[in-house]
C-alpha cells in the first residue's frame, strides 16, 4: 500500500492503495470512470487509452505508481472540452462510430495526435491511430473523421 496522488480530470486525487494496480482498474473500479474499456489487457487494442500529460497511454499496462504527480484525462474529462466537441461532431459526420467499444480510445488517440500535429497527413493519421484496433469500420471513416476534426478545429490545436 502506498499513498498515491495524481490529477484526474482536472481534480487532484489521492488514494491509499497498491501501486502495482493497473490504472485501468483504478479508473473503472475506484472512480467509476467506465469510458476506458478493457479489450485485450495487454496494450494491443487501445480501448483503454487515456491521456497522461496530454499524451496517449494504455491504462491497462500502466501501474498506478507510474501516474504519481501526473495529469490523467479520461474520455469523461476530455468530453467537457471544446476540442472534444469538434472531434465528436467529426466522428458523427463521417460515420466513424459503429459498435463504439473502441471509440473512446480512438477519440483519445485523435486528441493526442492533433495535440502533437494539428495538420496531419493521411499517413500520419494512420500512424497516430495504429495503436487502436477497430474491428467494425475498416478505419477509413475514422481517418476521415480525424481529417474533418483537424479542418473544423483549425486553430484549436
Amino acid at each position, binding site marked *: 500500500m502506498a499513498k498515491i496522488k495524481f490529477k484526474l480530470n482536472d481534480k487532484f486525487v489521492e488514494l491509499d492503495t497498491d501501486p502495482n494496480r493497473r490504472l485501468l482498474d483504478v479508473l*473503472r473500479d475506484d472512480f467509476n470512470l*467506465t*469510458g*476506458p*474499456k*478493457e*479489450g*485485450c*489487457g*495487454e496494450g*494491443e*487494442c487501445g*480501448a483503454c487509452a487515456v491521456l497522461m500529460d496530454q499524451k496517449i497511454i494504455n491504462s491497462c499496462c500502466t501501474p498506478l505508481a507510474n501516474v504519481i504527480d501526473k495529469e490523467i484525462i*479520461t*474520455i*469523461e474529462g476530455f*468530453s467537457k472540452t471544446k476540442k*472534444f466537441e469538434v*472531434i*465528436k461532431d467529426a*466522428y*458523427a*459526420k*463521417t*460515420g466513424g*462510430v*459503429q*459498435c*463504439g*467499444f*473502441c*471509440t*473512446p480510445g480512438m*477519440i483519445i488517440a485523435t486528441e493526442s495526435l492533433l495535440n502533437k500535429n494539428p495538420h496531419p497527413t493521411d499517413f500520419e*493519421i*494512420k*500512424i497516430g*491511430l*495504429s*495503436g*487502436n*484496433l*477497430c*474491428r*467494425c*469500420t*475498416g*478505419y*477509413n*471513416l*475514422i*481517418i476521415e473523421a480525424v481529417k474533418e476534426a483537424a479542418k473544423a478545429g483549425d486553430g484549436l490545436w
Partner: protein
Amino acid sequence: MKDISTSINKVDNEEKISGQAKYVADIKPEGMLYAFTVRAKIVKGKILNIEYPLLPEGYFVVDYRDIPGQNIVKVIFNDMPVFTEKEITYLYEPIALLVGPDKNVLSKLIEGVHIVYQEEEPLFDWIDSVVHYHFDKGEGKRAFSGKKIIEFNYETSYQEQAYIEPQGFIGYMDGEKTTLIGSIQCPYYVKKAVVQALGESEDNVRIIQATVGGAFGGKEEFPSLIGCQLAVALKKIRKPIQLIYEREEDMLVTTKRHPSRVHFKAAIKDNKIHALSADVGIDGGANIGLSGVVLSRALIACTGAYTIENLDISGDVFRTNTVPNGAFRGFGAPQMFFAIEMFIEHLALELGVDPLVFKKDILVKQGDYTSTMGIFRDPVLMPEMICKAMEVSNYQEKRINYDALDSYKGIGMSWFFHGCGFTGSGEKNIIKAKVRLKKEFDKVEILIAAVDMGQGVKTSFRKLVANILDIDIEQVIFNNPDTDAVPDSGPTVASRTMMIVGGLVARATEEVKKRWAEEKFIVEKEYEQPSYIKYDEEKFKGDAYPAYSWGVNVVEVEVDKFTYQVKINKSWSFYDIGKAIDERIVIGQADGGLAQGLAYGYLEVMNHKQGQIMQKNMTDYIIPTAMDMCPMETYLYENPYAYGPYGAKGVGELSLIGGAPAVAKAIEQAIKRRVFKIPVTPEYIMELIKNG
C-alpha cells in the same frame, strides 16, 4: 420527403463517443460477485476425480450437479453440455464456475483445483463425419462420364471474430426471475437456452441486451453457453454475478470460422464447363452446434455467381477434438466463394480461355436456376456492376501492365452474392418472427429483438418508421431489446434484420399510419413467407433464399520482392443491396466487412496444434490496424426487393465475402503463381515461389 438513403447522424453517436454507453462490463450491481471458469487441461478423455480447494466463506463451486434442468445448451443441434460431467472433448472445455467476491482470491483458488483425468487419443483428422449432405442438379454424377475432367483442391483456415469487447454477461435474481444482461446478438436464443437449462417457465427468465462491442457472428450462439452457466450459478447463489472473459480466454475457447477443404471437379465439354462436383469438408470442432447450417449455406453457394447446369455436390461436417466452431459473418459463404472464384479462374487458365470471357459466359442472369433449382427472380445487375468496376479501377490496363515478370503487383476481381435471410425454410418453420409497434400519443415504440451491435439497427429502424409516418425520428423509440418487453423477432443474424424484420416493421408502420388519429394502440405482425418461396430441406430443392445481394470487389496489391509481405494499395467495391436505408451506415458496413474479408485472405492466421489454438491474444492474432488499410471506394446499386422495406435486401455479410478471393487473385498475378489456400501469408508465397 427526403430519399431514405440520405444519411443522418446515428442516434447512439453521442453516448458512444463520450464513453457513456453502458457495455456489460460497465454495469455493476451492488454486491456483485465474479465467476471464473474451471477448464479441462486435456484434449480428450474422462474426468476421474475433481478435488476443489477449501473455499473461504462466500465462495462457491457451480457445476453440472447444480443444473436444475437439462445439461444441454439449446442451439440448432443440441450436443453441447452446459458443464461437462465426465467426458472431455476439447482442450479447455468448461467444467465448473468458481464464484466469489474477489478476483485475486478466485485466481488462486482456480490454481488449486486438482483434476485427475484418464486421457484418450484425440482426433484431429477429418474422418468422423457427423453431418453429411448431398444434392444433384441436372444430370448429377452422370454428367461426368466420358468428359475431360479438371480438378483442384482449396483450403481455408480459422478466422477469429476478434470483436474488441470480449464475451460476457452479468446476471441477478429479481425475485424468482433469472435476469441476464449480456453482450449478445440473439436475446431469444439465450432465453430459450436458459429456460431449458433451468427447467424454468418462460416467465421466470429475462434476457436484456447491453450495448454490444462488436459481434460478427461470434455472439450468435456462444453466449447461450455462458448464459446458461451463469443462470445456473445465479439460481444457486442468488447474488449478482459477473461472467466476463478476458481476451486470452475468449480467443482460446469461443467459436471461430470453420476451416474448410473443397475438392472441385469440372467436366468439360466444348471447352466449357458442363458439370461441377464439389466435395466439401468443414471442421466442426468438438460439437456440431450450427455447423450443419453453415455447411448447407456453403454448399448452396457452390456455383458462386455462375450458372452451371449439372451439379453433384456433397459435404460433411467433421467432428474433431478442437474448440467448437460456429457463426461468423458470411456463415460458410466466404469459404465457398474463395474456393469457387479461384477454381473458375484456374479452370479458364487450364482451358486457355481468358478468365473474364469464361466467367461472363456463365454469369447468373435473371431467371436462371440456382444450384438448388430455385430461381433468381429479381434483376441481376452484375454486368453493369462489373463494367463499372473495370472502368473505375482501370482493370484491364493494370492487368496487362502487372503481367510484366518483375512487377510484383497484381489486381484481382471477385464476383459474389449472398443469400439474404435464413437458409431454406428457417424463417417460416423455425423463427416465425413477430414484431410489435406501440403507438402512444405522438410517439411510436419499436418492439423487436434485433440487436444494435454497431451495424446501426437503432438508427436505421427509427429512421425507417419515422420516414414512413413522416414524423421526426425523435418521436420513434427503440430501446435495447429486453425479452420481457419485446416479442421474438428472431436473432440478429443472416443479413435478415433489415430485409425480414425491417419488412415486417414497415408493414406494421403502414397500419399505424392508417390509424394515426387513434391515441393509443398496438400493432403486431408475424412473418409470412412469400407464397412463391418453397424449399425442401432434405433434398436441397427449391428457393433457398427469398432474395440475393450481389457484389464485385477489385483489389490492387503489391508484394515485397524480398519479404513477400503483401500490401493492399486500393480497393473498389460494388454492391447491389436493394436499397440503402442509410447510405453512410451501409458504407461503414461495407468498409468493415471488406477489411475482414481482405484480412481473411492474406493476414489473419489462426491454427491449432494438437487441439491447442496457437494464437491466444491480439499480439499473436493479427487483425488489420489503420496502417494495413487501403483507401476503399464503394458504389451502391439500387435494385429494390419487393418484400424488403423500401426494397432493402441483406447488407451485413455481403461485404466480407469477396475480399479473400479478390486479394488472392491479385496476389496470384503479383507472384505469377496459383493460390490454393488462404490466408496467403509470406510463408505460403515463399513456398509457392520456391516450388515454381
